[in-house]
Protein backbone atom coordinates (compact mmCIF):
# COMPACT_ATOMS: atom_id res chain seq x y z
CA UNK A 1 0.00 0.00 0.00
CA UNK A 2 1.55 3.34 -1.03
CA UNK A 3 2.13 6.09 1.47
CA UNK A 4 -0.59 8.67 2.01
CA UNK A 5 -3.49 6.29 1.41
CA UNK A 6 -4.63 6.31 5.00
CA UNK A 7 -6.34 9.32 6.48
CA UNK A 8 -5.05 8.89 10.02
CA UNK A 9 -1.98 10.98 10.52
CA UNK A 10 -0.44 12.17 13.77
CA UNK A 11 -1.38 15.68 14.82
CA UNK A 12 1.23 18.41 14.57
CA UNK A 13 3.28 18.77 17.74
CA UNK A 14 4.06 22.46 17.65
CA UNK A 15 1.90 24.08 14.94
CA UNK A 16 -1.48 24.19 16.59
CA UNK A 17 -2.78 27.60 15.64
CA UNK A 18 -5.42 29.20 17.82
CA UNK A 19 -7.19 27.01 20.33
CA UNK A 20 -10.83 26.15 19.71
CA UNK A 21 -11.95 28.20 22.68
CA UNK A 22 -10.20 31.37 21.53
CA UNK A 23 -11.63 30.87 18.04
CA UNK A 24 -15.08 30.49 19.56
CA UNK A 25 -14.69 33.73 21.52
CA UNK A 26 -13.29 35.60 18.51
CA UNK A 27 -15.99 34.57 16.06
CA UNK A 28 -18.80 34.91 18.61
CA UNK A 29 -17.72 38.50 19.32
CA UNK A 30 -17.45 39.14 15.59
CA UNK A 31 -20.97 37.88 14.97
CA UNK A 32 -22.41 39.87 17.86
CA UNK A 33 -20.72 43.00 16.47
CA UNK A 34 -22.17 42.23 13.05
CA UNK A 35 -25.65 41.79 14.51
CA UNK A 36 -25.44 45.11 16.31
CA UNK A 37 -24.11 46.82 13.17
CA UNK A 38 -26.94 45.27 11.17
CA UNK A 39 -29.87 45.80 13.54
CA UNK A 40 -28.94 49.14 15.09
CA UNK A 41 -26.89 51.00 12.54
CA UNK A 42 -27.73 49.33 9.22
CA UNK A 43 -24.09 49.45 8.17
CA UNK A 44 -23.86 46.00 6.63
CA UNK A 45 -25.58 46.72 3.32
CA UNK A 46 -22.38 46.65 1.15
CA UNK A 47 -21.34 43.32 2.73
CA UNK A 48 -24.79 41.87 2.13
CA UNK A 49 -24.86 43.08 -1.47
CA UNK A 50 -21.48 41.48 -2.25
CA UNK A 51 -22.37 38.19 -0.61
CA UNK A 52 -25.76 38.10 -2.32
CA UNK A 53 -23.99 38.52 -5.66
CA UNK A 54 -21.75 35.55 -4.79
CA UNK A 55 -24.81 33.52 -3.81
CA UNK A 56 -26.69 34.33 -7.01
CA UNK A 57 -25.49 31.27 -9.01
CA UNK A 58 -26.72 28.93 -6.25
CA UNK A 59 -30.02 30.78 -6.12
CA UNK A 60 -30.41 30.55 -9.87
CA UNK A 61 -29.69 26.83 -9.71
CA UNK A 62 -32.19 26.15 -6.95
CA UNK A 63 -34.96 27.98 -8.81
CA UNK A 64 -34.61 25.66 -11.83
CA UNK A 65 -36.91 22.86 -10.54
CA UNK A 66 -39.78 25.28 -10.03
CA UNK A 67 -39.16 26.70 -13.50
CA UNK A 68 -39.30 23.20 -15.03
CA UNK A 69 -42.55 22.41 -13.18
CA UNK A 70 -44.07 25.70 -14.32
CA UNK A 71 -43.12 25.17 -17.94
CA UNK A 72 -44.49 21.61 -17.91
CA UNK A 73 -47.71 22.81 -16.33
CA UNK A 74 -48.07 25.52 -18.96
CA UNK A 75 -47.51 22.97 -21.70
CA UNK A 76 -50.16 20.58 -20.44
CA UNK A 77 -52.69 23.28 -19.62
CA UNK A 78 -55.54 22.52 -21.96
CA UNK A 79 -57.19 24.72 -24.54
CA UNK A 80 -60.43 24.47 -22.56
CA UNK A 81 -58.96 26.29 -19.64
CA UNK A 82 -57.80 29.09 -21.90
CA UNK A 83 -61.23 29.37 -23.54
CA UNK A 84 -63.01 29.44 -20.20
CA UNK A 85 -60.65 32.18 -19.13
CA UNK A 86 -61.40 34.20 -22.27
CA UNK A 87 -65.15 33.89 -21.66
CA UNK A 88 -64.81 34.98 -18.06
CA UNK A 89 -62.67 37.90 -19.12
CA UNK A 90 -65.10 39.10 -21.78
CA UNK A 91 -67.93 38.94 -19.24
CA UNK A 92 -65.87 40.99 -16.84
CA UNK A 93 -65.03 43.44 -19.60
CA UNK A 94 -68.72 43.97 -20.35
CA UNK A 95 -69.41 44.60 -16.72
CA UNK A 96 -66.59 47.06 -16.53
CA UNK A 97 -67.43 48.93 -19.74
CA UNK A 98 -70.32 50.63 -18.02
CA UNK A 99 -68.15 51.65 -15.13
CA UNK A 100 -65.32 52.86 -17.31
CA UNK A 101 -67.70 55.23 -19.08
CA UNK A 102 -68.53 56.72 -15.74
CA UNK A 103 -64.87 56.87 -14.81
CA UNK A 104 -64.03 59.01 -17.83
CA UNK A 105 -66.72 61.45 -16.89
CA UNK A 106 -65.73 61.43 -13.23
CA UNK A 107 -62.06 61.95 -13.94
CA UNK A 108 -62.89 64.88 -16.22
CA UNK A 109 -65.01 66.38 -13.53
CA UNK A 110 -62.31 65.69 -10.98
CA UNK A 111 -59.71 67.39 -13.18
CA UNK A 112 -61.84 70.47 -13.48
CA UNK A 113 -62.49 70.58 -9.77
CA UNK A 114 -58.83 70.18 -8.99
CA UNK A 115 -57.87 72.91 -11.38
CA UNK A 116 -60.49 75.00 -9.72
CA UNK A 117 -58.94 74.37 -6.38
CA UNK A 118 -55.48 75.01 -7.83
CA UNK A 119 -54.27 71.62 -6.69
CA UNK A 120 -51.46 69.82 -8.26
CA UNK A 121 -52.24 67.12 -10.78
CA UNK A 122 -52.64 63.75 -9.19
CA UNK A 123 -49.22 62.19 -8.78
CA UNK A 124 -48.51 59.31 -11.07
CA UNK A 125 -45.66 57.00 -10.24
CA UNK A 126 -43.65 54.94 -12.67
CA UNK A 127 -43.83 51.19 -12.22
CA UNK A 128 -41.53 48.25 -12.79
CA UNK A 129 -42.87 44.73 -13.26
CA UNK A 130 -41.16 42.02 -11.22
CA UNK A 131 -41.61 38.39 -10.34
CA UNK A 132 -41.59 36.88 -6.85
CA UNK A 133 -38.77 34.35 -6.65
CA UNK A 134 -39.40 32.81 -3.23
CA UNK A 135 -40.42 33.44 0.38
CA UNK A 136 -37.41 34.24 2.51
CA UNK A 137 -36.53 31.25 4.70
CA UNK A 138 -36.41 33.23 7.93
CA UNK A 139 -39.43 32.04 9.96
CA UNK A 140 -39.40 35.17 12.11
CA UNK A 141 -40.28 37.63 9.34
CA UNK A 142 -42.65 37.81 6.39
CA UNK A 143 -40.59 38.72 3.38
CA UNK A 144 -40.41 37.72 -0.25
CA UNK A 145 -37.56 38.09 -2.71
CA UNK A 146 -38.21 39.57 -6.17
CA UNK A 147 -36.10 39.26 -9.29
CA UNK A 148 -35.32 42.94 -9.80
CA UNK A 149 -32.52 44.74 -7.99
CA UNK A 150 -30.44 47.87 -7.96
CA UNK A 151 -29.18 47.18 -11.47
CA UNK A 152 -32.77 47.34 -12.77
CA UNK A 153 -33.42 50.57 -10.89
CA UNK A 154 -35.28 49.38 -7.79
CA UNK A 155 -35.00 51.88 -4.97
CA UNK A 156 -35.28 51.10 -1.27
CA UNK A 157 -38.66 51.92 0.33
CA UNK A 158 -40.52 51.54 -2.99
CA UNK A 159 -44.10 50.30 -2.56
CA UNK A 160 -44.92 46.94 -4.12
CA UNK A 161 -48.40 45.90 -5.24
CA UNK A 162 -50.01 43.08 -7.16
CA UNK A 163 -53.14 43.36 -9.32
CA UNK A 164 -55.42 43.38 -6.27
CA UNK A 165 -53.79 45.60 -3.69
CA UNK A 166 -50.73 46.65 -1.76
CA UNK A 167 -48.30 43.83 -1.03
CA UNK A 168 -45.53 45.54 0.88
CA UNK A 169 -42.47 47.67 0.59
CA UNK A 170 -38.92 47.10 -0.67
CA UNK A 171 -36.73 47.07 2.41
CA UNK A 172 -33.40 45.90 1.09
CA UNK A 173 -31.97 46.21 -2.39
CA UNK A 174 -29.25 43.87 -3.65
CA UNK A 175 -27.60 44.17 -7.06
CA UNK A 176 -29.79 41.53 -8.74
CA UNK A 177 -32.64 40.84 -6.30
CA UNK A 178 -34.51 42.82 -3.66
CA UNK A 179 -36.37 41.94 -0.50
CA UNK A 180 -39.96 43.00 -0.03
CA UNK A 181 -41.34 43.15 3.50
CA UNK A 182 -45.02 42.23 3.29
CA UNK A 183 -47.69 44.36 4.93
CA UNK A 184 -48.36 41.49 7.34
CA UNK A 185 -44.81 41.63 8.73
CA UNK A 186 -44.67 42.65 12.35
CA UNK A 187 -42.46 45.65 11.76
CA UNK A 188 -44.40 47.02 8.82
CA UNK A 189 -47.02 49.75 9.09
CA UNK A 190 -49.03 51.53 6.43
CA UNK A 191 -51.22 54.65 6.57
CA UNK A 192 -54.73 53.87 5.40
CA UNK A 193 -58.00 55.61 4.66
CA UNK A 194 -61.42 54.15 5.32
CA UNK A 195 -63.21 54.62 2.01
CA UNK A 196 -66.67 54.59 3.59
CA UNK A 197 -66.11 57.25 6.23
CA UNK A 198 -62.94 58.99 5.09
CA UNK A 199 -61.26 58.40 8.46
CA UNK A 200 -57.49 57.95 8.37
CA UNK A 201 -55.49 55.51 10.44
CA UNK A 202 -52.38 53.38 10.51
CA UNK A 203 -52.50 49.62 9.95
CA UNK A 204 -49.80 47.41 11.50
CA UNK A 205 -48.78 43.93 10.43
CA UNK A 206 -49.11 40.58 12.19
CA UNK A 207 -51.97 41.05 14.61
CA UNK A 208 -51.40 38.45 17.33
CA UNK A 209 -49.25 36.20 15.18
CA UNK A 210 -51.87 35.81 12.44
CA UNK A 211 -51.23 36.96 8.86
CA UNK A 212 -53.60 39.90 9.30
CA UNK A 213 -53.36 43.65 9.68
CA UNK A 214 -54.44 45.53 12.76
CA UNK A 215 -55.85 49.03 12.63
CA UNK A 216 -54.56 50.51 15.85
CA UNK A 217 -55.45 53.61 17.85
CA UNK A 218 -59.02 53.89 16.60
CA UNK A 219 -61.35 55.00 19.37
CA UNK A 220 -63.75 52.38 20.68
CA UNK A 221 -66.70 54.39 19.41
CA UNK A 222 -65.16 55.09 16.00
CA UNK A 223 -67.41 54.56 13.00
CA UNK A 224 -65.97 51.38 11.55
CA UNK A 225 -67.79 48.28 10.40
CA UNK A 226 -66.92 44.83 9.20
CA UNK A 227 -66.41 44.95 5.44
CA UNK A 228 -65.07 48.49 5.22
CA UNK A 229 -62.40 48.84 2.54
CA UNK A 230 -59.15 50.46 3.60
CA UNK A 231 -57.02 52.06 0.90
CA UNK A 232 -53.73 53.89 1.01
CA UNK A 233 -54.24 57.47 2.08
CA UNK A 234 -51.29 59.04 0.28
CA UNK A 235 -50.22 61.17 3.23
CA UNK A 236 -47.01 59.20 3.72
CA UNK A 237 -45.36 60.34 0.47
CA UNK A 238 -44.52 56.70 -0.30
CA UNK A 239 -47.68 54.87 -1.38
CA UNK A 240 -49.84 56.33 -4.14
CA UNK A 241 -53.30 57.17 -2.79
CA UNK A 242 -56.31 54.97 -3.41
CA UNK A 243 -54.74 51.51 -3.67
CA UNK A 244 -56.70 48.84 -1.74
CA UNK A 245 -54.86 47.60 1.35
CA UNK A 246 -57.27 45.57 3.47
CA UNK A 247 -60.87 44.85 4.35
CA UNK A 248 -62.05 45.02 7.94
CA UNK A 249 -62.58 41.48 9.20
CA UNK A 250 -63.45 41.85 12.85
CA UNK A 251 -64.11 44.72 15.23
CA UNK A 252 -63.81 44.09 18.97
CA UNK A 253 -64.91 46.85 21.28
CA UNK A 254 -63.61 46.07 24.73
CA UNK A 255 -64.67 47.73 27.94
CA UNK A 256 -61.20 47.91 29.45
CA UNK A 257 -59.62 49.73 26.53
CA UNK A 258 -60.30 53.10 24.96
CA UNK A 259 -59.25 51.70 21.60
CA UNK A 260 -61.10 49.14 19.53
CA UNK A 261 -59.27 46.06 18.32
CA UNK A 262 -59.75 46.00 14.57
CA UNK A 263 -58.45 43.12 12.46
CA UNK A 264 -58.23 43.44 8.69
CA UNK A 265 -57.72 40.96 5.90
CA UNK A 266 -54.96 42.10 3.49
CA UNK A 267 -56.16 42.55 -0.09
CA UNK A 268 -52.86 41.87 -1.87
CA UNK A 269 -52.14 38.16 -2.31
CA UNK A 270 -49.52 38.06 0.44
CA UNK A 271 -49.13 34.28 0.14
CA UNK A 272 -49.45 33.53 -3.54
CA UNK A 273 -48.44 36.56 -5.58
CA UNK A 274 -46.15 35.80 -8.51
CA UNK A 275 -46.20 38.95 -10.65
CA UNK A 276 -45.91 42.25 -8.83
CA UNK A 277 -45.37 45.91 -9.62
CA UNK A 278 -42.64 47.93 -7.95
CA UNK A 279 -43.71 51.59 -7.86
CA UNK A 280 -41.45 54.54 -7.43
CA UNK A 281 -41.87 56.08 -3.98
CA UNK A 282 -43.91 59.26 -4.24
CA UNK A 283 -41.53 61.19 -2.02
CA UNK A 284 -39.18 61.72 -4.91
CA UNK A 285 -41.84 63.52 -6.90
CA UNK A 286 -43.17 65.71 -4.13
CA UNK A 287 -41.30 69.04 -3.92
CA UNK A 288 -39.43 69.64 -0.65
CA UNK A 289 -41.09 71.49 2.18
CA UNK A 290 -40.74 75.25 1.96
CA UNK A 291 -38.33 76.78 4.48
CA UNK A 292 -39.96 77.67 7.76
CA UNK A 293 -40.81 81.37 7.80
CA UNK A 294 -40.23 83.16 11.04
CA UNK A 295 -43.19 85.05 12.31
CA UNK A 296 -42.41 88.51 13.55
CA UNK A 297 -44.38 88.25 16.76
CA UNK A 298 -42.44 85.42 18.42
CA UNK A 299 -38.94 86.28 19.62
CA UNK A 300 -36.39 83.64 18.69
CA UNK A 301 -33.88 82.74 21.33
CA UNK A 302 -30.32 83.21 20.21
CA UNK A 303 -31.40 84.31 16.75
CA UNK A 304 -30.20 87.46 14.95
CA UNK A 305 -31.85 90.60 16.21
Amino acid at each position, binding site marked *: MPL*GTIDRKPPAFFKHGMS*ALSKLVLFAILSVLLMVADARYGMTQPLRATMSLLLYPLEWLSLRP*RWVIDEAGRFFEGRDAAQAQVQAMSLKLQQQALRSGQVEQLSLENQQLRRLLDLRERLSSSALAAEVLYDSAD*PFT*RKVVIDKGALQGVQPSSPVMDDVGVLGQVTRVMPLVSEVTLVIDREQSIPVLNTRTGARGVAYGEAGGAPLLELRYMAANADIEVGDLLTTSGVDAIYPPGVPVAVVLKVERRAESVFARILCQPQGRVYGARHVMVLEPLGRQVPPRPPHERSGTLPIKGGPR
Partner: protein
Amino acid sequence: MIMPRGQQLLLPANPWFIFFSLLLAQLINMLLNMVVLGNAAWAPDFLAVVLVFWCVHQPQRVGIGVAFLFGLFNDVQQSSLLGQHALSYTVLAYCAVLIHRRLLWFKEPKQSLQVLPLFVLAHVLELLVRLLSGSLFPGWWMLLAPVIEALSWPVVSVLLLAPQRRAPDPDEHRPL
Protein backbone atom coordinates in the same frame (compact mmCIF):
# COMPACT_ATOMS: atom_id res chain seq x y z
CA MET B 1 -3.78 7.38 17.06
CA ILE B 2 -6.04 5.11 19.10
CA MET B 3 -9.14 3.96 17.30
CA PRO B 4 -11.97 1.52 18.01
CA ARG B 5 -11.25 -2.12 17.34
CA GLY B 6 -12.43 -3.30 13.94
CA GLN B 7 -12.96 0.13 12.45
CA GLN B 8 -12.14 0.44 8.77
CA LEU B 9 -9.11 2.44 7.74
CA LEU B 10 -10.28 5.37 5.65
CA LEU B 11 -8.76 7.04 2.62
CA PRO B 12 -7.86 10.74 2.96
CA ALA B 13 -10.73 13.13 2.39
CA ASN B 14 -10.62 15.26 -0.73
CA PRO B 15 -10.79 18.99 0.22
CA TRP B 16 -12.83 19.71 -2.91
CA PHE B 17 -15.33 17.04 -1.91
CA ILE B 18 -15.68 18.68 1.50
CA PHE B 19 -16.25 22.07 -0.10
CA PHE B 20 -18.80 20.79 -2.60
CA SER B 21 -20.68 18.80 0.04
CA LEU B 22 -21.09 22.01 2.03
CA LEU B 23 -22.27 23.87 -1.08
CA LEU B 24 -24.66 21.04 -1.87
CA ALA B 25 -26.09 21.18 1.65
CA GLN B 26 -26.69 24.91 1.19
CA LEU B 27 -28.34 24.19 -2.16
CA ILE B 28 -30.62 21.57 -0.59
CA ASN B 29 -31.60 24.07 2.10
CA MET B 30 -32.46 26.63 -0.56
CA LEU B 31 -34.40 24.08 -2.60
CA LEU B 32 -36.39 23.10 0.49
CA ASN B 33 -37.13 26.76 1.10
CA MET B 34 -37.99 27.83 -2.43
CA VAL B 35 -39.82 24.79 -3.75
CA VAL B 36 -41.20 22.75 -0.88
CA LEU B 37 -41.57 24.35 2.51
CA GLY B 38 -41.48 28.13 2.19
CA ASN B 39 -40.55 29.73 5.48
CA ALA B 40 -41.80 26.93 7.74
CA ALA B 41 -40.30 27.11 11.22
CA TRP B 42 -39.56 23.37 11.31
CA ALA B 43 -37.50 23.30 8.09
CA PRO B 44 -34.35 21.32 8.91
CA ASP B 45 -30.97 22.92 8.29
CA PHE B 46 -28.83 20.35 6.48
CA LEU B 47 -25.91 22.75 6.21
CA ALA B 48 -25.61 22.53 10.01
CA VAL B 49 -25.57 18.72 9.83
CA VAL B 50 -22.85 18.64 7.18
CA LEU B 51 -20.81 21.26 9.05
CA VAL B 52 -20.95 19.23 12.26
CA PHE B 53 -20.07 16.11 10.31
CA TRP B 54 -16.90 17.64 8.86
CA CYS B 55 -15.97 19.29 12.16
CA VAL B 56 -16.12 15.83 13.73
CA HIS B 57 -14.36 13.93 10.95
CA GLN B 58 -11.92 16.55 9.61
CA PRO B 59 -11.34 19.06 12.40
CA GLN B 60 -8.03 20.05 10.79
CA ARG B 61 -9.76 21.25 7.64
CA VAL B 62 -13.25 22.37 8.66
CA GLY B 63 -13.48 24.25 11.89
CA ILE B 64 -14.99 27.25 13.53
CA GLY B 65 -13.82 29.74 10.89
CA VAL B 66 -15.44 27.85 8.02
CA ALA B 67 -18.64 27.47 10.03
CA PHE B 68 -18.71 31.21 10.70
CA LEU B 69 -18.28 32.01 7.00
CA PHE B 70 -21.03 29.64 5.89
CA GLY B 71 -23.26 31.06 8.62
CA LEU B 72 -22.78 34.55 7.21
CA PHE B 73 -23.75 33.38 3.74
CA ASN B 74 -26.80 31.65 5.19
CA ASP B 75 -27.81 34.90 6.88
CA VAL B 76 -27.60 36.80 3.62
CA GLN B 77 -29.55 34.14 1.77
CA GLN B 78 -32.30 33.94 4.37
CA SER B 79 -32.30 37.72 4.84
CA SER B 80 -32.24 37.21 8.59
CA LEU B 81 -30.21 39.27 11.04
CA LEU B 82 -26.62 39.33 9.76
CA GLY B 83 -24.60 37.27 12.24
CA GLN B 84 -27.45 35.17 13.62
CA HIS B 85 -26.53 31.95 11.85
CA ALA B 86 -22.85 32.87 12.04
CA LEU B 87 -23.10 32.86 15.85
CA SER B 88 -25.08 29.64 16.07
CA TYR B 89 -22.77 27.84 13.60
CA THR B 90 -19.71 29.07 15.50
CA VAL B 91 -21.04 27.57 18.72
CA LEU B 92 -22.12 24.44 16.86
CA ALA B 93 -18.65 23.95 15.36
CA TYR B 94 -17.00 24.56 18.73
CA CYS B 95 -19.16 21.90 20.38
CA ALA B 96 -18.49 19.52 17.48
CA VAL B 97 -14.73 20.00 17.82
CA LEU B 98 -15.07 19.42 21.58
CA ILE B 99 -16.81 16.06 21.18
CA HIS B 100 -15.10 14.85 18.00
CA ARG B 101 -12.74 12.37 19.68
CA ARG B 102 -15.44 10.76 21.78
CA LEU B 103 -18.11 10.68 19.12
CA LEU B 104 -16.17 8.43 16.73
CA TRP B 105 -16.17 5.60 19.28
CA PHE B 106 -19.91 5.17 18.81
CA LYS B 107 -21.92 3.70 15.96
CA GLU B 108 -23.94 6.12 13.83
CA PRO B 109 -27.37 5.69 15.53
CA LYS B 110 -25.82 6.43 18.93
CA GLN B 111 -23.89 9.33 17.42
CA SER B 112 -27.14 10.93 16.34
CA LEU B 113 -28.33 10.88 19.96
CA GLN B 114 -25.14 12.65 20.95
CA VAL B 115 -25.39 15.36 18.30
CA LEU B 116 -29.05 16.10 19.04
CA PRO B 117 -28.22 18.49 21.93
CA LEU B 118 -25.87 20.39 19.62
CA PHE B 119 -28.59 21.07 17.09
CA VAL B 120 -31.05 21.96 19.84
CA LEU B 121 -28.49 24.41 21.22
CA ALA B 122 -27.98 26.00 17.79
CA HIS B 123 -31.70 26.52 17.25
CA VAL B 124 -32.25 27.84 20.76
CA LEU B 125 -29.41 30.29 20.23
CA GLU B 126 -30.99 31.57 17.00
CA LEU B 127 -34.36 31.85 18.72
CA LEU B 128 -32.85 33.80 21.64
CA VAL B 129 -31.08 36.20 19.30
CA ARG B 130 -34.27 36.89 17.40
CA LEU B 131 -36.39 37.25 20.52
CA LEU B 132 -33.86 39.75 21.87
CA SER B 133 -33.98 41.70 18.63
CA GLY B 134 -37.75 41.98 18.91
CA SER B 135 -39.30 39.18 16.86
CA LEU B 136 -42.18 36.96 17.89
CA PHE B 137 -41.92 33.25 18.71
CA PRO B 138 -42.62 31.43 15.43
CA GLY B 139 -44.37 28.43 17.00
CA TRP B 140 -43.61 25.14 18.71
CA TRP B 141 -43.14 23.43 15.38
CA MET B 142 -39.59 24.71 15.36
CA LEU B 143 -38.70 22.01 17.95
CA LEU B 144 -39.03 19.50 15.11
CA ALA B 145 -36.08 20.93 13.19
CA PRO B 146 -33.24 19.68 15.45
CA VAL B 147 -34.91 16.25 15.70
CA ILE B 148 -35.02 15.91 11.91
CA GLU B 149 -31.41 17.06 11.73
CA ALA B 150 -30.30 14.45 14.30
CA LEU B 151 -32.29 11.74 12.51
CA SER B 152 -30.56 12.59 9.24
CA TRP B 153 -27.13 12.21 10.86
CA PRO B 154 -26.65 8.46 10.08
CA VAL B 155 -27.69 8.96 6.44
CA VAL B 156 -25.39 11.95 6.02
CA SER B 157 -22.55 10.01 7.66
CA VAL B 158 -22.89 7.06 5.29
CA LEU B 159 -23.12 9.31 2.22
CA LEU B 160 -20.23 11.59 3.09
CA LEU B 161 -17.91 8.78 4.22
CA ALA B 162 -18.56 6.67 1.10
CA PRO B 163 -15.73 8.21 -0.98
CA GLN B 164 -13.27 7.52 1.83
CA ARG B 165 -14.38 3.90 2.12
CA ARG B 166 -13.37 3.01 -1.42
CA ALA B 167 -10.63 0.44 -1.94
CA PRO B 168 -7.10 1.86 -1.77
CA ASP B 169 -5.96 -0.27 -4.73
CA PRO B 170 -8.83 -0.40 -7.30
CA ASP B 171 -8.57 -2.87 -10.19
CA GLU B 172 -11.03 -3.93 -12.89
CA HIS B 173 -12.82 -6.38 -10.56
CA ARG B 174 -13.19 -3.71 -7.92
CA PRO B 175 -13.48 -0.36 -9.71
CA LEU B 176 -14.64 1.60 -6.68
